[in-house]
């Protein structure tokens, strides 16, 4: 307490008189970042909100006509767009569920004394650090029906992964599971290591079975961190573009981001794509909101 008093006194007398005041330093440190983000993230979004009410096409020099809510109405009644959303939902569910199962499963396996545990963990984390687009490209070779190592290893003959409309989405999800299970594993390991050991000891003394211990001790204590992993991966999977765009051009694997990209940069329906971008944006912000709430909750612990 005494030090704080002295500090405040001292700051106002000597040092602070020479330098900038705390308030101006705070503003100097924070405002440029906020401005930068407003100019390069928020301003463009306002710009595109304007275009979303027009029939503007960036490929022509024709002026944009105001069409009101026409774009939104068209999009929301377009079965094609709805099917993109349905495909995206399916993709999110498969890949996040897969990542949760594999990631948490491997974390459970790793959560014991293992020789070279640190090295193994780092090696297992490698896939998520790599470029989705570049590594995704290479999975094309792995999935190749005639000389891919996946078919060879699994003895599947000439099974079509990417060129079969029914299979393509699962193939993309499988690659995504490979890439991002490590993320769930990383968070799960943190959660598992935070479970107090004495709880397990108490359970052992009470002769609790492994299932009871898992469902009554491990799972409830790891759940908040798992939840973070799930929400974060849901958000990322919802936005997936790179992987699906690189791996396949099957309409059955056309995620909403890909539809948006095609609408904007191949069909040049700029106004309409801005409207679709807004619909996607609102969904992402909703998930982000939930995510941040959860982050803060876990932080408080």
């Amino acid at each position, binding site marked *: 307490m005494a030090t704080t008093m002295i*500090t405040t006194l001292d700051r106002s007398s000597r040092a602070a008189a020479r*330098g900038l005041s705390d308030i101006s330093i705070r503003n100097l440190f924070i405002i440029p970042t906020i401005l930068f983000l407003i100019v390069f*993230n928020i301003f463009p979004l306002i710009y595109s909100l304007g275009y979303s009410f027009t029939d503007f096409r960036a490929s022509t020099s024709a002026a944009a006509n105001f069409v009101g809510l026409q774009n939104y109405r068209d999009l929301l009644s377009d079965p094609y767009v709805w099917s993109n959303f349905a495909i995206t939902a399916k993709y999110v569910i498969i890949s996040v569920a897969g990542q949760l199962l594999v990631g948490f499963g491997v974390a459970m*396996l790793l959560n014991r004394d293992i020789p070279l545990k640190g090295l193994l963990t780092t090696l297992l984390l490698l896939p998520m650090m790599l470029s989705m687009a570049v590594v995704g490209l290479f999975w094309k070779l792995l999935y190749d029906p005639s000389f891919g190592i996946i078919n060879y290893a699994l003895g599947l003959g000439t099974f079509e992964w990417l060129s079969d409309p029914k299979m393509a989405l699962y193939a993309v999800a499988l690659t995504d599971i490979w890439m991002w299970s490590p993320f769930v594993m990383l968070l799960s390991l943190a959660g598992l290591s935070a479970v107090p050991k004495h709880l397990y000891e108490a359970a052992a003394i009470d002769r609790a079975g492994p299932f009871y211990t898992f469902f009554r001790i491990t799972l409830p204590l790891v759940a908040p961190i798992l939840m973070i992993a799930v929400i974060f991966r849901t958000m990322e999977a919802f936005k997936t573009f790179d992987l699906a765009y690189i791996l396949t051009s099957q309409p059955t694997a056309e995620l909403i981001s890909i539809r948006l990209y095609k609408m904007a940069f191949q069909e040049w329906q700029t106004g309409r794509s801005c409207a679709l971008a807004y619909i996607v944006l609102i969904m992402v912000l909703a998930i982000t909101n939930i995510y941040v709430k959860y982050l803060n909750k876990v932080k408080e612990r």
Partner: protein
Amino acid sequence: MAAVRTSSEITFNRVAIVAVLLVTIIFLAPIYWIASTAFKPRNLATTIPPTVVFQPEISPFVKLFTKRSQLRSPPSPEEYAAAPWWERVVFNGGEKIVRDGKGQVQWSGYPSRFMNSLIVAITSTVLAVGMGTFTAYGFSRFKVKGEADLLFFILSTRMLPPVVVAIPMFLMYRAVGLNDSHIGLIILYTAFNLSFSVWLMKGFMDEIPKEYEEAALVDGYTRMEAFFKIVLPEAATGIAATAVFCFITAWNEYAFALIMTSRRAQTAPPFIPSQVGSGLPDWTVIAAGTFLFLLPVAIFTFLLRNHLLRGMSFGAIRK
């Protein structure tokens, strides 16, 4: 663990260790396949059954960096003997290196894309971490009105889908001539990484005891001096970890680069897939390009291993 260990537990432990090893092998198989394909002669890259044991070659890397054309007829013995080793390996593969009128070797598109990736990733990292460090300090040490909302706003910019931001940015860049420019991409990546860097650095700043600066302030330092001389050195590890994360993100980024660049400023991620055109791609060359591109990230992952958890959770979870 407790001393009570039944034999079934020990067995289970052993099974788990074997399972972990198996999973590790499966997870690393695709990466191993990239690395090994990068050193294969072309005819062994797509064999049935897959070739696992082979004599490694450097030819994919020579081919990666040079422009080549198909040989119509094999080179004359003199031509072959006069050629340097790196040209011979290309001859061996039934191709020749394209030279211009003066006999200068023509480079492929790869080295310039790699350089672009370096320029864009390094510059945007420096900017994002620089600004992020200041801002994080501001949030960590001073009372900011609506701090939670501001931090949410900052994080939410990171969560925007790239394609959503890219549409208006493309139009704006086109209007000011920033399409296909380094600066354009650097701005986008800086904005993208800035929010991450603020969040991560705030965690690191919060961990530095306030008393350090307060002691300095008592000694007559100004707040600025205390920040630069006391806080920054204390935060060095955090700054380095944040920088590596930002670098990796910018290095790996694909969607913005695909939309905003085409030639001059194109980075490696959109370039490497564009090599797989129609016809039969030379997977050894693609693997070589992929290998070189992934190498820095793999090294950084090992250096970062103790910070991965923190970085991937935006600084929310620390061990």
